[in-house]
Every structure is written in C-alpha cells, then in structure tokens.
C-alpha cells in the first residue's frame, strides 16, 4: 500500500471536514494524518491528508471527494515532487546527567528548545515525516513526558 498525500481546497465552513472524513471512514479507511487551516482567502481552507490504501479504492475515494459540493479542488501528490513538513513538540525529562546528550541531539536534528524548567525541556522540530520519526526515536530513551505532532502539510515543488 502506497502513501498518498492529498491536498484539498474546501469551503471554510462547518460540515466540510466531516464530509471528507466520512468518505474514508465509510470504507473502513483510517487517515494517517490530517491538517487543516485557512488559506490566504478566508473563505477557503486547505487540508493535507496522508493516507495509505489500495490504489483502486483510494482512486474511488478521490473521485468521490471531488464530487462533494464543499470541495473546490483535490490534488493527489502521489507522483509529484513534493515538499512535506510537519512539526513535533516534545516534552522530555530534564536532568543534569542527560541534558548535554539531549541538546546534542537537538543540534544534530536542528531542533529548538522552547522552554526549560528544572523538571523538563520542551523541544520543537520541523522536518520531513521521516526525520521527525528518527528524532522521536532518539529522544525516547531520555524520558518523553508529552509529545504532539502536527501531521503533514505539503506543497508541490512544481514551478507553476
């Protein structure tokens, strides 16, 4: 099953998100990640959806998405050069023994320290999904107290 990154432009009003998610859930498909926000036009929202699934069934879902009256545009970035980014915020234990190693990992990955209190550090990393996964794995042994990921957001590399 291939990973698909979908970019949708939708009407920015109640119900639109639920129409979109309903098309996946009615077939028993789980959305891996989803991010939604207003675009430069406040009447339009942009959704980025990451989903894994059978090609033929996803093809059906994409056509059904396009048919929804709240959906202005659907793009499936399966074969297009694409910039994908997500943000992770991690709260990790702060101790004199491990702090140096944690900060080293931060500098390797390019993560930032957003807050420091005696008990913990809050780290932020923006990157491709894979490097976020790697970062989390490396930080894990130092004691993760909380973790939030934004889900992927994406834009095409094409010049037009």
């Amino acid at each position: 099953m291939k990973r698909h990154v979908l970019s949708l432009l939708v009407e920015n009003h109640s119900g639109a998100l639920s129409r979109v998610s309903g098309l996946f859930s009615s077939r028993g498909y789980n959305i891996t990640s989803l991010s939604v926000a207003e675009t430069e036009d406040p009447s339009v929202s942009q959704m980025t959806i990451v989903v894994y699934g059978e090609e033929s069934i996803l093809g059906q879902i994409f056509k059904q998405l396009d048919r929804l009256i709240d959906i202005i545009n659907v793009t499936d970035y399966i074969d297009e050069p694409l910039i994908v980014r997500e943000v992770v915020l991690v709260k990790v234990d702060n101790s004199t023994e491990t702090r140096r190693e944690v900060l080293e990992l931060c500098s390797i990955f390019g993560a930032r320290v957003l807050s420091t209190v005696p008990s913990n550090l809050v780290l932020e990393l923006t990157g491709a999904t894979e490097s976020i996964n790697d970062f989390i794995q490396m930080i894990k042994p130092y004691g993760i107290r909380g973790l939030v990921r934004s889900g992927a957001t994406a834009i095409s590399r094409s010049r037009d």
Partner: protein
Amino acid sequence: MKKTGAQILIDALIRENVKVLFGYPGGVVIPIFDVIYETKEFTFVLTRHEQAAAHAADGYARATGEVGVCLATSGPGATNLITGIATAYLDSIPMVAITGQVATPLLGTDAFQEADVVGISRPITKHNFLVRSVKELPEIIRKAFYIASTGRPGPVLVDIPVDVSRAVLDDYQYPETVSIRSYNPVVECDIAQIDKAVELLSGSKKPLIFAGGGVNHAGAYEELRIFAEKTNIPVTTSLMGMGTFPAEHELFIGMPGMHGAKTANYSIQEADLILSIGVRFDDRVTGFVANFAPNASIVHIDIDPVTISKIVKVDVPVVADAKTALRLLIEKSSARPKNEWNTKVSGWKGEKLYTYTSSESVIKPQMVIEELYKFTGGNAVVATEVGQHQMWTAQYFRCNAPRTLLTSGGLGTMGFGLPAAMGAAMGIDGKPVMVIGGDGSIQMNIQELATLSINNIPVKIIILNNTFLGMVRQWQELFYDHRYSSTCMRGGFLCSSCVGIGACKKQYVPDFVAVAKGYNIAAFRAETPQQVLQVIKDGFAVNGPALMEFIVSPEENVFPMVPAGKSLDDILEG
C-alpha cells in the same frame, strides 16, 4: 420585502414551482405550518408517518421528473425521513427534505426532540445545509433545488432551526441566479471519446446496449430508441432503466442480473461490446464481477465520473449527459444491418422473456401481474414494494413508457411502494396508479391507507399474499435447507414446531379486506384463479382508492435466478 423565515421558506417553495408538499407537523415547525395554513399555491398532504412523506415525495419525483419535497419536525420527525432519503439517494432521485431543528442557542445540548440531522443525513444526501441565520435562508433554498435537480440528481436536506423560522428579514429577495464555485453540473461531452465508442461499434460483431436510470433522468428515451433502431443493437435495461426502452420492442431483451431474463444475461456474457448508458453496475446486475461480460469491451456513458470504472473496468469512459451522448452517437454511427448476432439473441428470446407454470387451482402471482397488464393495456403507473412481487412486476408488467415503474432498486426499501404510489398519484393525471406489494412489505407503511382515504387519492393497492416474506423464504429454501426462520407470517414464538405450510391451521392476520374497510377503502379478495379478473375489474371500477388482495401460491419462487456471487450464465430455473 419584510418576511419571517417561515414565510421566506414557503415563498421560495412557490417560486421553485412546488405543487405538492408531503409532511407532518411538530413543535419546531409550527411557524412553518402557520404559513402553510393560508397557502393556496400548493397542496399540503398530511401523511400518517414521516417516512411515508419522504417516499411520497420520492414517488412524485419519479413519476413527474420534478423535485419532490417533504417536511418534518426535528428529532424523531427528521429521523423518520432518513429511510426515505436514503432510498432516494441510492436511486438518484431529486428531492428536497426540509426539517425543523431546535433553536440555534440549544444546538448540541440534547434539547427536547433534538437530533443532529445534518450529521445523520450526511452520507445519504447529495448535500445538506444547516441554516444558521435567516439571512442565509433564501440562497440555501435556491441552492438546494439547484443541487437536487442538476447533474446526477439526488436528495438535499435543509435543516431550519425554529428561531430562524421566526426571525424577520427586512430585505428579502429570492435569488434569481445561483452559482456554486465547486459544483459545475453541466459537463461538455468529449467528442473524442464518442469517436472511440463509434470506432469500437463499427468493429463489433456482437454489440449490446445496457441502459439504466440515467437515461430516465436525462429524458433520453427517444434518442435511445432512435439509436437502437438505427444500429439494430439489442437493448437490455436495468431495473431503474425499465421504461426507457419499450418492453414490447423487438430489440428489447429484458432486464439483466439476478432475476433478469436469460436472454439478457446470455447476451451480456457473449457480447463483444457493451454500450452502457446511465447505469452503475450494481452487484445484482453483474453477478460475479470478474466474470461479467468476459468477451466485451465496455463503453460507459455517465454524468457522474465516480460511477465509471467503480465496479467494472471500462474501456471507453464518456462523462456526459445521456441525451447529449446519444445524440452524438446517432449522428456519428452508421446504420448497422441485423446479423447472426441478432438472430442468436432472438433465438434466446423465443416467444417470451419469462415463463412460469400456470395453475387452475391456485393463483400464481405472475398471472395476477399479467392480468393487470392486460387489463390496463400497460397504460398505468406501477409502484412496487420490495421482494418477490417486485421482481415479478419487473418481469411481467411490460413497461413501455418512461417513469411508469417506480421501485426502490438501490436501497431495496420495503414500505416504499404504497406512499410512492400516493406521491405519484398526486403528480400525474390520466393514468391509473397502482402499487403492487407483498403481504409483508405492504404492512410497513399501511397507515397511509388513511391518507389515501381522507383525500380520496385513487391508488389501487394490489397485495400478492403468499403469507411469507417470500424473497428471504426463497433463499432459505434454495440455500439454507428449507429452514424458514422468521419468514412465515403465520409464525411466531408460540409455534413449538412447524407442521408445514399446508397443514398449519393458524389464522393469518391481518384480514386485509377488513383493514381496508376500517380505513373506509373499498376492498376485494380473490382466492382462486377464476376470481382474479373480476377482482381486478371491481377494484378498478371504484372511483378512488381500492385494495385488491390475491391469495397466491405460498411457495412460488422467482426464476430465473443467478445465485449471489455467481456468473450471469450460471442460471437456476424453476
């Protein structure tokens, strides 16, 4: 102009040319009913159940081609519409359902008679709206009718909170135009795709036309007939396509699929080209999909791109309105003389598409339908319930005109037929309207006898009483070793062991003739084949509704039958 939300709604319905509204009142729609009280421009029909209001609006739409409209209150009123809306959705029927809702400050608080109807109806509507302010109302109603009736039609629900109905809008104007940036129902037919179809056709030795409900929606019956006659291609129609091509036509080869004509199924399996128009390849049509039409290239014309290659892989997709595409096909294809293929198909067809063993001692359900066909000359609108009688109607009531067979094909909703016939009768003149039902499904909305009686709506109610839920019983007989679990309408949990159909002395309930009389509706019963014609004559002689009950052979089966999951040429016969 200054108007309340309720006045705006009714004014909008009038401007949308609504002639009949089916519905049921309740707390949060009282402001709307208060306006209806003095409205002369349309007829309001009070049904006895909201589900019937939805089916009646659906039946009205199927028979007339206009948008059907129903109205119910919030909570239970609205949830009672849901089966009717889902029925319309699966058969692509244009409908606008209006529901009342609790006042906006109470939304989401589990208020009295509150249900999230926009949420519940989302997967079974083409679109739906929650009206948050009276300012939005005119545009939303305009959009609702536009969306319901254009492109691939479907039901649209509009949920109106009671404070919106009561609110006043100072500068009401009904919008003259409508545009939705993400919805463009008018599609240009790609000529290059038509050319490909024509090229396939010119090389085809065994072509077949498979037409469905899309031809009905597009009003493309004339074009279909002209194209078929020009090219001499045999025509099969899906259940939803019945009537789009005259059943008496020599090129007609019946309905395909599970209970379709052998001719249609054999033709599909042997054809080298299938021109499918406005169909969606339902599993009841295709049988085992991997072996559907194994020798054919498939051209699929449909207005909805989602349908194309959804079930069956299509070689030439044509996204277009059926009428536009057929006109182009007529123009671009050359006349095709009949060939050996036509001879072979005619050979399969023989004298009759469907046959059964007649009887002198017991009424055969098929015979009742044949007699009804002969008596009306086929000039009637027939609604059906769902089950064996539905298939027998499709087989034996030869449907020659469009919009004359009203049946729940997609959802298969028992309880659809009686209210749908009522809706149809409110929409058409000059043709008798009947519902053919079984003794099981007719009881699912039998309360509508009151609506028929009070308003003298002249629906003829035909009940083929086999004392069973026949279609399920048939499957139990054929595939579950005769274990008639919960399909005998005489049976109940007090039956300790079954003594068998002939020996059972338990009384059948209800007495349908007595029920009809209770509603002040004329009723007749035939128990022998010799009484059938007289009962039909008596029922149709009544000026108004009439109920005709036929006690038919209890274990009659619908044949031919392609068992679920089998190929179309794997046919069981009686």
